[in-house]
């Protein structure tokens, strides 16, 4: 009848405010923005961290993700993202069954057997992640130890790491955070004698990564790396002269792990939209002593290009009222972009967690009295949403069609995670994603609304 106590490993997973001060920030801005921040508890309608596997397995091209979990986990990954397009994915689930639970089978032997079968089938793998799930956390399978043991057996061909993507600890994009954090202890160490280097942290589309690489090179920043790298062998090295820029707003644990290795975070808003990208690049430029005219010369043309391509959607989106359901933690930077560069009005910005320090720059740029709701009670939120009658709702896949059927236009939040949207060249694409529901509504005959049946 009684719940088991939480496993000891869970404690660090929640970004409690008290832990924020561990994160150093060179230009720590006061966290108190003009926004109104409320928190809410109740039923959540969000993915768990396992979902991150869907993009991470494409990003790190010689990595495999083995979820140690239940049939539900396997079903989630294969159906949630509609990933059945990949006939041979680099992820799988080791499904725990009753023999494992009853102790008839030794879990570690079973895991070794499954991993060996996998490695046999995919001899090209270089990096294997054992990914913890809700059941594996609750029954306390120690995947970190299993990873050490398996690594010992399989090195140097395959390195084995472990992280948790469980839904009792992680929400959606926090799975990427946990994955990247697990990579950090294994990064090669640099000494204090190493030249100052820049690390961009957070999975980005390859094309976006290449654009940023070019921009940094043109500014004269010589040593630039990206975490995660596209191949296991190319992961960056780290040391006291590493400066890092977060490319994604959800990397709490990764940031902490990087700082434990001596890296220093550069405070910046996130590279969404012309303005966000400029500020983000400027943070690196300032740290690396790039002369203002050089910065100007490098960024001027792409910034103007971004502004022009965003402006194309201004008329369609300005004054439109937008409501965010919590999903990816990208909500606050997205809201900042939409309000400042497209003139949209923010009705409510829901976010699963709000990392006040990483988002300090973003919060300061929001219009005053923006309502930010951290956490979720989905039914209450739906009530507020219906009452507010926004022009556009950003929400998860479970809510989108039902809201559309009620006549409320939606944008799937998962598309914002899966589409390359960062940087100058993608700013117009990002705006277009929000404009598309309106364009579509205009294209479709109004007759369709009356004639709909399902």
């Amino acid at each position, binding site marked *: *009848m009684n719940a088991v106590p939480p496993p000891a490993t869970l404690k660090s997973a929640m970004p409690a405010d008290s832990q924020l001060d561990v994160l150093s920030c060179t230009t720590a801005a006061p966290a108190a923005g003009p926004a109104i921040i409320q928190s809410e508890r109740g039923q959540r309608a969000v993915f768990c961290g396992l979902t991150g596997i869907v993009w991470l397995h494409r990003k790190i091209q010689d990595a495999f993700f083995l979820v140690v979990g239940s049939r*539900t986990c396997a079903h989630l990954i294969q*159906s*949630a993202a509609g990933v059945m397009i990949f006939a041979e994915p680099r992820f799988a689930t080791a499904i725990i069954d009753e023999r494992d639970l009853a102790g008839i089978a030794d879990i570690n032997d079973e895991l070794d057997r499954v991993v060996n079968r996998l490695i046999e089938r995919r001899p090209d793998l270089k990096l294997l992640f054992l990914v913890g799930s809700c059941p594996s*956390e609750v*029954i306390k399978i120690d995947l970190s130890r299993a990873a050490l043991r398996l690594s010992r057996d399989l090195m140097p061909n395959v390195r084995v790491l472990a992280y948790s993507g469980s*839904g009792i600890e992680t929400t959606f994009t926090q799975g990427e955070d946990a994955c990247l954090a697990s990579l950090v202890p294994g990064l090669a160490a640099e000494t204090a004698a190493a030249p100052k280097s820049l690390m961009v942290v957070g999975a980005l589309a390859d094309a976006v990564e290449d654009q940023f690489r070019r921009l940094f090179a043109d500014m004269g920043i010589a040593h630039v790396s990206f975490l995660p790298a596209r191949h296991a062998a190319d992961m960056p090295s780290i040391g006291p002269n590493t400066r890092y820029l977060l490319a994604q707003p959800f990397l709490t644990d990764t940031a902490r792990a990087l700082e434990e290795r001596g890296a220093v975070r550069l405070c910046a808003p996130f590279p969404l939209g012309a303005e966000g990208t400029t500020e983000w690049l400027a943070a690196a430029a300032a740290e690396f002593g790039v002369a203002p005219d050089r910065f100007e010369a490098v960024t001027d043309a792409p910034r103007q290009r971004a502004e022009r391509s965003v402006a194309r959607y201004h008329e369609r989106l300005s004054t439109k009222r937008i409501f965010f359901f919590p999903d990816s933690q990208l909500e606050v930077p997205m809201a900042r972009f939409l309000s400042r560069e497209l003139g949209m009005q923010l009705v409510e910005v829901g976010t699963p967690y709000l990392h006040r320090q990483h988002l300090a720059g973003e919060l300061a740029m929001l219009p005053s009295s923006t309502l930010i709701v951290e956490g979720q009670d989905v039914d209450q939120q739906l009530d507020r949403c219906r009452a507010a009658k926004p022009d556009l709702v950003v929400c998860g896949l479970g809510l*989108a069609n039902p809201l559309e059927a009620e006549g409320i236009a939606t944008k799937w939040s998962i598309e914002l995670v899966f589409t390359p949207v960062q940087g100058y060249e993608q700013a117009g694409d990002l705006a277009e994603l929000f404009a598309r529901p309106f364009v579509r509504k205009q294209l479709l005959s109004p007759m369709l609304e009356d004639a709909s049946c399902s």
Partner: protein
Amino acid sequence: MQLTVWTYEGPPHVGAMRIATGMKGMHYVLHAPQGDTYADLLFTMIERRDQRPPVTYTTFQARDLGGDTAELFQSAVRDAYERFRPQAMIVGASCTAELIQDDPGGLSSALNLPIPVIPLELPSYQKKENWGAAETFYRIVRVLAGPSAPAPGASRPERAAGARPSCNLLGPTALGFRHRDDVTEITRLLDRLGVTVNVVAPMGASPADIARLGEADFNIVLYPEIALPAANWLQKTFGQPLVKTTPIGVGATRAFVTEVARIAGIDAAPFLAEESSRLPWYSRSVDSTYLTNKRVFVFGDATHAIAIADLAANELGLKVVGLGTYSREFAREVREAAARHGVEALISDDYLEVEAKIAEQHPELVLGTQMERHIAKRLGVPCAVISAPVHVQDFPARYSPQMGFEGANVLFDTLVHPLMMGLEEHLLHMFKGDFEFKDGIAPSHLRGEGSRQPEPQAETQVERQAESAEAAIVVANDHPAKLSAATVATWTQDAEKELRKIPFFVRGKARRNTELFANENHVAVITVETLYDAKAHFGR
């Protein structure tokens, strides 16, 4: 612990969701962590439902585990009742909540809600989606229809003179493979036959409808995977006979009509004389002769796999070279069906094993689920989807039943469409060197798909992919002996060249047969002669 690349079925609580979501006035409170809410999108995205599934999740987190998750569950039940005011509720736990051993049934009955609250015990680490759906439906039927059960031993009252016989259609759910259209087709068929449908359940039924299941004269089990336990209980409790024939294919539909008529006490002859499908003539017409003995591998849930294999063999003249199911609960039925086709049944929910078996059989057509579609794509074999698990494409906008006479029409098209058309196949055989007949080419009516392949390399690529996939699978499954290629005769250059003249989609089979022949006859070097000797030996 089982290594799973793809799963055929979700966990049992997803089966329960399929029941609740199909019904009206039912609500499901599921003790589950937040990640489990992904299941909503199966219904809103894959099936394009315009409402959220009627499911409340407790979405407990790690920090709740030290506290009172039981209280969390109770408040979720209370809030769900207040907000949704359902006629009845089902309550249960998903895999993670099962481990923390709160007692959803006991906790909710302590709330004394003024509606029936039906507890579900769905063991997540043993059972799967279809079992979960069947168990849920059975529990709901017992609780809601039970109170109107006649006294034990009481006989069913006679049907009033002149009244039409009535039946219930049992088994269709949300997210079912073509359930929506099957129900329409069978309801129309029954109506023309003179039988009234009392209740369709669970799809479209309210708890009040479930309560009057006993009023029908008999039950039709459309999908045994879901409805059989409930139908058996109704038979025992209300004395309602069961119709178990699955009306997929012309022959099975006619048998179904005959069985229904017998149980309903009506004459099926006039109906059968009038109603039919285009399938029989389409299949007899000469342009279908190219289908003769084409090798087909069938895999799916038991109901669809058995029915489609029979249809493929008896109504299209294909040769069933493999028949299998992931529904272990119906292994016996599938084994019997496989014996009819002279093959050994494959009972497995291991995608990798199914992949290996398909590669081993060199089918010319695969009829399976979305998983087998991937396998077939890898092997370069045409494929049609005939069973769940489903994909958004399996909910077509058009009317597309599998059952009844219209279902047979749909199936004729579905099964034949992926294949080369008859004369096209002949021409490809004859003029392989023609520059426009590049090897690895898709059927001309599927041009769009074919043109996506890089054509110049298509020949070797497709074949190599197929062959290397096969090798990989065999290695992975620890029976390399099955693949004779590794150990036997070597090919002369001429023989290798001659082999290339055989169209790619049968080349694998030709290679295999030749090597098998060489092996059996102790031929060390395969020449052009050996190739044709083998061809003569194996026939087609």
